[in-house]
């Protein structure tokens, strides 16, 4: 049934129609019930002069679209971005089963707001901070800390490309459900929120690179590339648009100034430290970054979320390589043209031991799935994509004492470092020799399973002083 307010708004239709030439728009629809809401905004000087909707929806959805336009018209973009499902529900009082109808209008409004922001640039405001919201507990607590610090946060969620065939796409941090959760987390604290649709760009810049890397026999780390080259660049651009000098995320890392340089430093919680993932964020962006969780542990974060009653307190952790959506990355590669050539499995002497279905299925150090019987366990030593060959041998053959990193950047002078050669492995002591487009690492002790394409991150004490991509051995 319909509340009196729902009937009033659904039949008022004072805001139905188009917003005129030059308007931006956003649409949302429900594939099952066929409802659709389109909201148009005409924006001048960061203020919404006209908000209109065209709706084919039940009275709940129609009333929500009407109300969303009524609330948005006359407000500036940041004010309008605080309007969400909870505000609409408060007035329309839909039953639980009809909240989805109301959310359609909120979705359409926010898509239109994102489009409006794309054409606007708000004047800078000193205390304003752009907070990256994933819908998870970490970013929700980071936002809470920004509010408690008396800053003026503006939430943003990047909607990235997710494999449509993924088994568990909804758990990824950029799924539509996560975008709604992030928006709700902001609105619960009265904070404006924008969702930016970067699916195409992400697919082009990050996913294609991941696919071509595997085709070439490398083992790329898309998360490092995403953070360093894509995500933080998008966040910085967003911060500029909303006039925020600073940006914040819920990563477990810290920023320190040392000798006039801005360096990334490990998070205080050794179990959650995410500095490896952020190692290639450019220093110009790093200077603007604030990581409110850098000084605390994940357990503290969860406790704070619980105390504050944040809805995100119980959400599951998002995953690495989010766009694979919980699936097997080999199946993902094969679905999306990341499969490398099939060919022979050979030993270090070039003797053929068997055949394999594609070089993308192998990474140095791998033991399973080789499919060749031998007296001692065989490991992948090297992937030679050009020749379609996978070289295998006993574990001793995996060990390397020298690693070439190119391209690589040294961020501060350092001769002796601890080098982390893969995510979730212990760093090893190394001596750095700069040269060429990067540097070479002489490892104090041999390391097994160094994979070309992975990121090497150099630490001086807790600070990141260098990072780059591990090159194939021939280049070294």
């Amino acid at each position: 049934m319909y509340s009196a307010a729902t009937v009033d708004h659904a039949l008022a239709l004072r805001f139905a129609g188009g917003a005129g030439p030059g308007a931006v728009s956003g649409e949302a629809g429900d594939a099952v019930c066929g409802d659709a809401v389109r909201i148009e905004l005409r924006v001048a000087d960061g203020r919404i002069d006209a908000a209109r909707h065209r709706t084919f929806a039940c009275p709940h959805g129609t009333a929500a679209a009407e109300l969303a336009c009524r609330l948005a018209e006359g407000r500036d973009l940041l004010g309008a971005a605080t309007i969400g499902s909870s505000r609409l529900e408060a007035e329309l009082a839909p039953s639980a089963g009809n909240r989805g109808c109301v959310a359609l209008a909120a979705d359409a409004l926010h898509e239109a707001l994102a489009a409006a922001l794309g054409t606007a640039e708000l004047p800078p405001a000193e205390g304003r901070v752009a907070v990256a919201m994933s819908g998870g507990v970490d970013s929700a607590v980071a936002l809470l800390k920004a509010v408690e610090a008396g800053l003026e946060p503006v939430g943003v969620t990047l909607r990235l490309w997710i494999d449509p065939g993924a088994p568990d796409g909804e758990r990824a941090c950029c799924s539509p459900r996560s975008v709604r959760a992030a928006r709700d987390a902001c609105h619960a604290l009265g904070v404006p929120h924008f969702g930016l649709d970067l699916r195409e760009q992400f697919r082009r810049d990050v996913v294609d690179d991941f696919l071509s890397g595997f085709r070439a026999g490398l083992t790329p780390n898309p998360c490092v590339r995403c953070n360093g080259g894509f995500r933080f660049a998008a966040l910085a651009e967003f911060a500029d648009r909303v006039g925020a000098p600073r940006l914040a995320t819920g990563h477990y890392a810290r920023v320190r100034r040392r000798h006039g340089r801005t360096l990334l430093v490990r998070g205080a919680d050794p179990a959650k430290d995410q500095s490896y993932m952020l190692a290639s964020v450019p220093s110009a962006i790093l200077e603007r970054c604030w990581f409110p969780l850098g000084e605390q542990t994940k357990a503290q974060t969860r406790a704070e979320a619980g105390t504050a009653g944040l809805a995100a307190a119980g959400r599951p952790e998002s995953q690495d390589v989010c766009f694979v959506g919980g699936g097997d990355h080999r199946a993902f590669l094969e679905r999306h043209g990341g499969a490398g050539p099939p060919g022979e499995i050979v030993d270090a002497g070039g003797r053929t031991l068997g055949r394999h279905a594609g070089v993308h299925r192998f990474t140095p150090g791998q033991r399973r799935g080789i499919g060749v019987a031998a007296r001692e366990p065989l490991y992948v030593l090297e992937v030679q994509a050009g020749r379609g060959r996978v070289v295998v041998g006993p574990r001793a053959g995996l060990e390397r004492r020298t690693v070439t990193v190119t391209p690589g950047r040294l961020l501060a002078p350092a001769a002796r470092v601890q080098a982390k050669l893969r995510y979730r492995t212990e760093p090893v002591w190394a001596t750095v020799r700069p040269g060429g487009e990067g540097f070479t690492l002489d490892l104090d002790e041999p390391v097994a399973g160094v994979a070309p394409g992975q990121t090497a991150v150099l630490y001086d004490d807790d600070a990141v002083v260098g990072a780059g991509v591990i090159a194939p051995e021939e280049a070294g």
Partner: protein
Amino acid sequence: MSVYLDHAATTPLGPEARAAMEPYLSERFGNASEPHAYGRAARAALEAARATLAELLEAEPGQVILTSGGSEADNQAVFGLAGSAPGRIVVSAVEHPAVREPARELERRGFEVAWAPVDGDGVIDVEAFERLVRPGDRLAAAMWANNVTGAVQPVERLAAVAAEAGVPFHCDAVQAAASFPVGLRSSGAATLALSAHKLGGPKGVGCLVAREPGRIPPLVWGGGQERGLRSGTENIPGAVGFAAALAATRAAEDRRAAMRDRLEAALAGDIAVVSAGAERLPGHLLALVTGIRAELLVLALDREGYAVAAGSACAAGDAEPSHVLVAQGMSARDARSVVRVSLGPGTTEADVDGFAAAFRGCLGRLREGGLAEAV
């Protein structure tokens, strides 16, 4: 109060039914199972009502099982004829939920259900029905007239098809009985379901008319009323009101078809008539208003003082559009844009003319609102 044009949903209690019921709501309140004067008076009234119903429905009194309404009668027929060991049944694609959901439940219990298709006007395809019904099927079910479109089904031919295969035929006559005589013998059905409140009777009473009542096991067990086929203290005022209402319906002059035609003429150009090619119930109009959500038009008309129904409302938790309209080939979006107007025996020219004007006014305001275009 507003003008009521939603008689397919329910009807007001007619004066004949009300008058007949009155004593049984007050001084004659007895339990028909008791031998004293109160009980005997109740028993006499019950059996008189049953006799009236039987006569009007071309059946013997012993073939009339009084129930709590149409849904119970449909349930008892479908579950009763199907039996408990899994088998095969044939059911039309446009049945009321009171038949459709029991069939789906049987499907979950391991039965095979063949859904008989309809044509573009929502009329069951007799040839397809003939191909689907096979000897050994537990039952075949089709409604006499559809509650959404008003389309009248070729019941006698469908019953003949079933009879040819030796399959019992159940017919939901709930919607049809308010508009024309329905009867057990002439229909050829094994079972008929009716409801009182659709034809000027009280809510909470209906009946299952069965050629062989002994083949239909009870849904409700207890004191053995209705010859053990439907336990529970008999609803005497309900039965009396039901019989009086059905008799009054048969006797009344019916101007609904003329009123409906007048309405359709007044709205020509504003609407498309759904199932226009079918024989339809006389007071029934399902109007397609492309691009406008029916629920909004219903709310707007309610403000103007007219009560009509959305043909396919989107209920919470049931986002699928009407299975009836989709079965006859309507798009999911159009199925959200149908308004059901169902006239009653008392609907007047003034009602129809006033409604048509209000309808056009509301439709115009919604269309001018620029709601639907371009989405």
